[in-house]
């Protein structure tokens, strides 16, 4: 297992290096002048020239890249061109909001997706199976930003239920402020017994989490259904039935365990996908996370911010894939020697 882990870590480092190089190159080749963004549209040419030099933008690209890598490794991820604040600090401020959103979405996707997939598999061809398949297709087909706007229109606009934007009611930040422990508002409110804040943060989380959950839910439900159908056809299940083992035990204890490895793999991939999917969802719901930060960075050509988010995204992908491999290896020992 340690050797397996070491090999996967080595590959991961190469991936991160490649991502950083490609992102750096892309940020530099697009026709823009970061120095101009830094000083503002009405700055004088002399001021632009001074900042170009100060930011090292007049250096050759390889020199700039090596300098960037060296700084990243020492914890200096650059300074945002738009806000003049350290990028790492800004990412750290926003990461918990995104993790909370993605975590909630994945929890919904896992619980509902696996449950619906199993229910559909034990009643193949019936109405419930058709409904689950339809839901799965809708989940993976509907664009997140569209679904988000639709939910806002229906749940907030028509029914007057659930807040459409933000993370917490603005006034509660003064009347019942959350004492930050983990940075996850719902968890912190729960840990500190702040009922008002918990109700507000949970209410604010529902719509964006459901929107973000749509895609992974569809994928997980479909994968679980397929794997379960296969598992339920296995000889040992038939033998179990012949021996009178209750159907509930066979489905939830035996077949589901066999069906889980591919579902876990898919779940891992969709979790990483959800991180990028959160970009759209955060913009629609004004959720102050990494996605909103990236969107703002892209529109203002704030390349240190964009590179920071890309690197975080790449690290998340790598870690999630690593975790999936380890879980997979745990569930299926045949994976390890490979």
């Amino acid at each position, binding site marked *: 297992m340690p050797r397996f882990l070491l090999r996967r870590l080595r590959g991961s480092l190469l991936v991160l290096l490649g991502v950083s190089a490609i992102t750096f190159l892309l940020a530099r080749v*697009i*026709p*823009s*002048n970061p120095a*101009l*963004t830094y*000083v*503002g*549209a*009405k*700055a*004088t*040419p002399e001021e632009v020239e001074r900042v170009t030099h100060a930011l090292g933008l007049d250096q050759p690209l390889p020199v700039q890249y090596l300098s960037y890598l060296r700084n990243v490794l020492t914890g200096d991820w650059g300074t*945002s061109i*738009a*806000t*003049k*604040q350290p990028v790492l600090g*800004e990412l750290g*401020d*926003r990461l918990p909001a995104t993790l909370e959103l993605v975590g909630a979405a994945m929890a919904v996707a896992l619980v509902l997706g696996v449950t619906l997939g199993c229910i559909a598999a034990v009643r193949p061809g019936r109405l419930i199976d058709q409904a689950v398949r339809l839901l799965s297709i809708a989940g993976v087909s509907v664009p997140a930003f569209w679904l988000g*706007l639709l939910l*806002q229109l229906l749940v*907030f*606009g028509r029914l*007057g*239920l*659930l*807040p*459409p*934007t*933000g993370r917490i*009611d*603005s*006034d509660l*930040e*003064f*009347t019942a402020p959350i004492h930050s422990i983990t940075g996850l508002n719902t968890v912190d409110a729960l840990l500190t017994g702040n*009922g*008002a804040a918990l*109700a*507000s943060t*949970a*209410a604010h989380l*529902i719509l964006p989490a459901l929107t973000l959950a749509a895609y992974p839910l569809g994928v997980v439900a479909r994968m679980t259904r397929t794997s379960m159908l296969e598992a339920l056809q296995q000889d040992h299940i038939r033998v179990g039935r012949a021996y009178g083992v209750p159907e509930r035990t066979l489905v939830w204890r035996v077949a589901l365990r066999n069906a889980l490895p591919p579902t876990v793999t898919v779940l891992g991939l969709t979790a990483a996908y959800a991180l990028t999917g959160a970009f759209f969802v955060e*913009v*629609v*719901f*004004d959720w*102050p996370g990494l996605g*909103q*930060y990236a*969107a*703002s960075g892209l*529109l*203002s*050509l704030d390349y240190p911010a964009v590179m920071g988010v890309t690197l975080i995204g790449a690290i998340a992908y790598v870690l999630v894939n690593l975790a999936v491999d380890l879980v997979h290896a745990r569930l299926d020992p045949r994976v390890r020697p490979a």
Partner: protein
Amino acid sequence: MATSRRTPAAAALVACGLLASACTGTDSGTDNGTGQILNVATTAEVTTWNPVKSFSTEVYYLSNVYEPLLWMNPPGSKERFRPALAERWQSSADARRWTFHLREGVTFHDGEPMNAAAVKASLEASAKDGGASFIWSALDTIETPDEHTVVLKLKSAAPVDMIASSMYGAWIVSPKALAKGEDYFAKGVDAGTGPYRVSEYQAKKRVVLKAYDKYWGGWKGERYRTVVARITAEPTAQQQMLQSGQVDYAGSLPLENVARFKKDKGYTVTECPTFQSHTAFFNTTKGPLKNVKVRQALAQAIPYDDIVKVGTEGFGARARGAVPAGAFPHDEELPQTPYDLEAARRLLTEAGYEGGKGLKLTLSYAAENAQQAKYAPLIKDSLAKVGVSVELQPILFNQQWEKAKADPATAQDIFLLMYWPTYSDAGSDNLVSLFRSSDKPFFNLSYWKDATYDKLVDEAGTHTATDQDKAAELYGKAQRRLLEQAPGAFLYDMRTPVVMNSEVKGFACNPNYSFSIPFHQLRHGAS
């Protein structure tokens, strides 16, 4: 088993709690014991907290934290200026010596006294290192004959009253803070005399301003002692926040949705004139556009009224020249280029382009500018009617501008620009920055060089401080030259709809400061 039976009830309770919280929403203008809170949604990001360096959207906050010597009143007011940190002021007959008598007993947020030395240090810093240092280019020396008197001596006559009321480069800052250097301001530290202090700053997320108790203007009435500004660029999100009661004011709503707020008694909608104007520049150095008749034809083939209707949802007004209405030296007598396709076709024929034969032009605009994205296709369609083919190039403004400044010979043929003057003298700004000859392009994106025009604006500038009628007359001639030579087409001046919760009272427009809202002016309820 008991647990499983309690679960549905508990879930229902939690759900009810959530829904109750959600349905109740935020009580606008809550008074939590620390005074009324005003919640606002804004696109205004902070590029610097240094008031000397500031030259961007942070003016939204800085104008509530710092004060200049004078404020400029809205056009049409009885008095053109009103006192801010200077109670009285006068200039010599030649407008080269300006004396300001300062308000006494004013302190900066850091406890330092606001006096002549502080004003001298602030203005010298702005003139030397300011983001808008050029507005002080005429400044020679500053004298402080006594604790509360400042004398500005100039190298040449300049309208210092207009300059000193600028929203960029004219804030008075505590000298103690200035001495600490630029990094001091980085985290949102402030050192002004204004009604608010910066209490909290989370980049691109929110800014919290809190009342400065010792503010010389006082805090009588139901004023908002706390202002929470949530920064969000998405207009639809701002609308959702306003409708859900999460904010009392949203600065950038989708224009097409403003009408619904007008019908709702829960909101007040004020249409504020601004000095933001939209212009189409024609590349006068390239191919057929070197020919003035082709440029005149293009100017007459632009559907101005449709652009105002579609691009601004009716919130714009057709421009009359390069100076927006209300700003000096706007000329109400200046003719507007007519939309006349027949005349355009005739001019093209005279220029040797009958039926627009062979004319293929590129038009670049800022992709992030929703208004330009809406009206650029209208220009393309209309020019097609006279046989001119236009390729639209939507790119981010910084890229658009970079490309335009690089080499006029390979740059776009038509450049759409939204522009506003740094301070209220659009003669020295719009007319000079946008159209005066320059060897290196900056904002003169038609690359036009015209000695007659240069002479007119240069001479006009020398009269602004001493004889504004004379200056206006010369600027008027310069603008007529612009219409005749058509280096660009003047599309519209923007009016911004300000939509507020109807419980917020006291708002009044001022186009001189259209990028900011004076929060201290606002009151909660009917008071």
